[in-house]
């Protein structure tokens, strides 16, 4: 099972983990990304390229599925205005063993951050806004999975 969801609505982490667990295996890994308090940030505005986002996320999930023995993958990414502490992204992977589940989850996040067409704009406490820039560490993390594109 591959479940991809992109939209403004929040997600229930427990529910999503149960859904993946229900697809078999006994090893479930998950990652939740939230709006971080990173130097007076009050909110994020997440923009995306709707026609491409779903395709790009599905491609990442399919690459994970072909490289690890997974029973289920869920990727949920929110868009629109998000406040401090709110959920942004959830990845859940289910496998028979933890190694595959954890590695696949990590791979999906690394690729998502460098390939999926989302852009973050930060709003600071004084009202100033700025577009988040690409981080070299994210690019390096993505490139380390060089055989898994």
């Amino acid at each position, binding site marked *: 099972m591959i479940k991809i969801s992109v939209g403004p609505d929040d997600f229930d982490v427990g529910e999503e983990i149960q859904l993946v667990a229900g697809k078999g295996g006994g090893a479930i890994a998950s990652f939740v*990304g939230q709006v971080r308090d990173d130097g007076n940030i009050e909110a994020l505005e*997440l*923009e*995306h*390229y709707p*026609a*491409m986002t779903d*395709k*790009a996320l599905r491609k990442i999930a399919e690459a994970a599925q072909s490289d690890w023995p997974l029973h289920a993958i869920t990727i949920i*990414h929110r868009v629109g205005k998000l406040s401090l502490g709110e959920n*942004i*992204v959830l990845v859940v992977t289910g496998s028979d063993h933890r190694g595959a589940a954890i590695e696949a989850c990590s791979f999906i*996040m690394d690729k*998502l*951050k*460098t*390939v*999926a*067409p*989302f*852009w*973050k*704009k930060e709003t600071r406490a004084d009202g100033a806004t700025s*577009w*988040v*820039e*690409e981080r070299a560490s*994210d690019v390096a993390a993505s490139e380390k999975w060089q055989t898994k594109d």
Partner: protein
Amino acid sequence: MDRTLTILYFAWVRERLGRDEEQVPLDEGAETIADVLAMLSSRGIAYAEVLADAGKLRFALDQEYGTLESPVGSARELAIFPPVTGG
């Protein structure tokens, strides 16, 4: 044959150009993404400035990543945007 490309702009590219989408008739010799950028750059100072440093931009043809050398071919949609920052 007249070719028209839908060009989409995202994030600060969209903001600095003041538009998110436009239909652009392609010049006869416009073969690659680089050619399309050169064409757009001749439209005005805002385009020329935003597109000047193509290394800071990413491109997708019909929702698949491409490079400056990618042939536009029969693609209908070219998206121009900064490096992605989701997650």
